[in-house]
């Protein structure tokens, strides 16, 4: 279920064909936003850049707009907007803010920078 985006969530289009079913995304990320605010757009843009750079081909982003779907805020205990939830790999991690601090995002997602 976690891999299946809900009807109302939008699948992120990262310009590339989505991952095949057999090779499921190792990184399942969910970005919670509330409407198309500049901050949400920034967060999405930042997230996509980071994913493209570090997780190319192994990630799946689901954007949940709480304006449309407020009940979903409860499940992941969302307070701050935007919040990025790393659903997979486990354990769940939460990153709040517009993701402008790449270093902290990497720490938060527990991604080793490529040069390491």
């Amino acid at each position, binding site marked *: 279920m976690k891999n299946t985006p809900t009807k109302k969530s939008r699948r992120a289009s990262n310009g590339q064909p989505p991952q095949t079913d057999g090779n499921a995304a190792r990184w399942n990320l969910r970005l919670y936003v509330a409407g198309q605010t500049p901050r949400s757009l920034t967060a999405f843009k930042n997230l996509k850049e980071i994913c493209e750079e570090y997780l190319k081909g192994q990630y799946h982003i689901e954007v949940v707009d709480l304006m449309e779907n407020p009940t979903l805020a409860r499940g992941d205990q969302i307070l701050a907007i935007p919040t990025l939830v790393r659903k997979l790999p486990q354990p769940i991690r*939460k990153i*709040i803010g517009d993701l402008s601090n790449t270093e902290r995002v990497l720490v938060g997602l527990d991604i080793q920078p490529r040069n390491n």
Partner: protein
Amino acid sequence: MIKQNRRNRPRPLDGLRKEPTGIPGFDEITRGGLPSGRASLVCGSAGAGKTLFAMEFLVRGATIYNEPGVFMSFEESSDELATNVASLGFDLNQLIEDKKLVLDYVFIERSEIEETGEYDLEGLFLRLDHAIASIGAKRVVLDTLEALFSALPNEAIIRAELRRLFRWLKEKGVTALITCERGDGRLTRYGLEEYVADCVILLDNRVQNQISTRRMRIVKYRGTSHGTNEYPFLIDEKGFSVLPITSLGLSHKAPTEHVSTGIERMDNMLDGKGLYRGSSILVSGTAGTGKSTIGAHFVDAACARGERALFFAFEESQDQIIRNMRSIGIDLEKYVRKGLLKFHNARPSTWGLEVHLAMIHKTISEFNPSVVVIDPITNFLAVGDRTETKAMLTRLIDFLKSREITAMFTSLTSGGHDVEDSEVDVSSLMDTWLLVKNIETNGERNRGLYILKARGIAHSNQVREFLLTDSGIQLVDAYIGTEGVLMGSARSSQVAREKAADHDRALAMERKQRELRRKQELYEAQLIALRGQYETERDALLRELEEEKQRQREMAEQRLEIARLRRADNGEVQLEGNGARKSRKGTVAR
């Protein structure tokens, strides 16, 4: 503002619209409840009862005023909350099912969170908004909103967002209650009172002499008058109750109806009518003088009249009182079974004074008695000093009077003190003061009962001897005479002495009467004898007189005869008429 569709609610006394909480007592001290459509703050240290207060605000709102509510908890999960308040008789799950309540548990684990730039708390707003919209909530509780400060790293953002949140709540028109942990030297740890400034309630749980007392104070309430004192409150199986007892004054009514004390002769001492209904009676005395027994008589009489009576016993258990009173012929058990009499037994040291007052208040409100006995009030000194105890009793008496309950208080005077020392200095508060005194004479102790005062009743000023018999209390006239006041065996020997003296006097009277009778008989006998003598003498004299007359008649006849024989010239005709004269003449002539 929110649409008004409200019935059966107390009208606020002033301009500000208020939302009744339904919490007993609270709406009285705030004159209507929490400010409607605004946010209020309830603060207090851990365990002060904030969550419960907030929860009861919602539950009562949903059940009494039909106003759905949202409870957003930052500390306890929904299940925990439901379990915790189930003990107070609140069925949260049912309310949730009925769409009267939404519980939203907001949980943030700081270690899971990484801050990576700017954010806001729109998620919280959306959750709250959704919860409010889903049931059309009118009331919102945010239980320990300050948890945000420990959950999220950026205090500046939180503060800005909280400001926005309170504004938003106001716009929503919901009546919000926000709980806050008490900070060092300030009301809240993070200074939330700066944002929520309309109404601030402080809950407190103070420990004094190892006894804790819960108190509530309205620190501020913008735009309205409110009680400013600290009010004790209780949390028990029925939830929260605040006791607005201090708000009473001297404006109670004074009924003119009388009630019996249950002891006939005591009623007689009280102008033959007994006590005024709604008055307060102090029964003071040293140990073992029968104060509780007077109390038992009092409730017994009330129950016999079919009234409800409440007996607060701070020294004995219910069974013990029933047993002891049965030994003097008072059967209280039957009234307990009938539901007319209720005992409330507790050790004074169980709670603080305020809680005792609160318990008494609550028990009275629930049972609604017309007669109350508190036995004894002196035991409260174990948990408070004289001033506090007096203050507490003053409030209690005011409360009882306002409900026109006749109350009897017993007070133990310890041996060394002046017996007229009422220990707690409450005698001035009382309308009637009975003093039971042990009077020690001739090596024995006897109980004497005085009425020291009885406001508005022409009472007896005499001491009565007070006996505990198989049929309850008996008041006996103490012997008051030249020998002083005598009681007990001295009284009975005096009575015996008097009886003997009376007997002697009676005998003497009898003797005198006998003598009188004898004398009468004697004189009567003499009278008869004299009369006899007189009659004898009279008869003799009468006989002599008769004989003399006879003789004279004979002599006259003789003379006539002689004259006839001598052929006297006066004719026959004159014989009858003049003969005698003539003869008399003749006699005279002779």
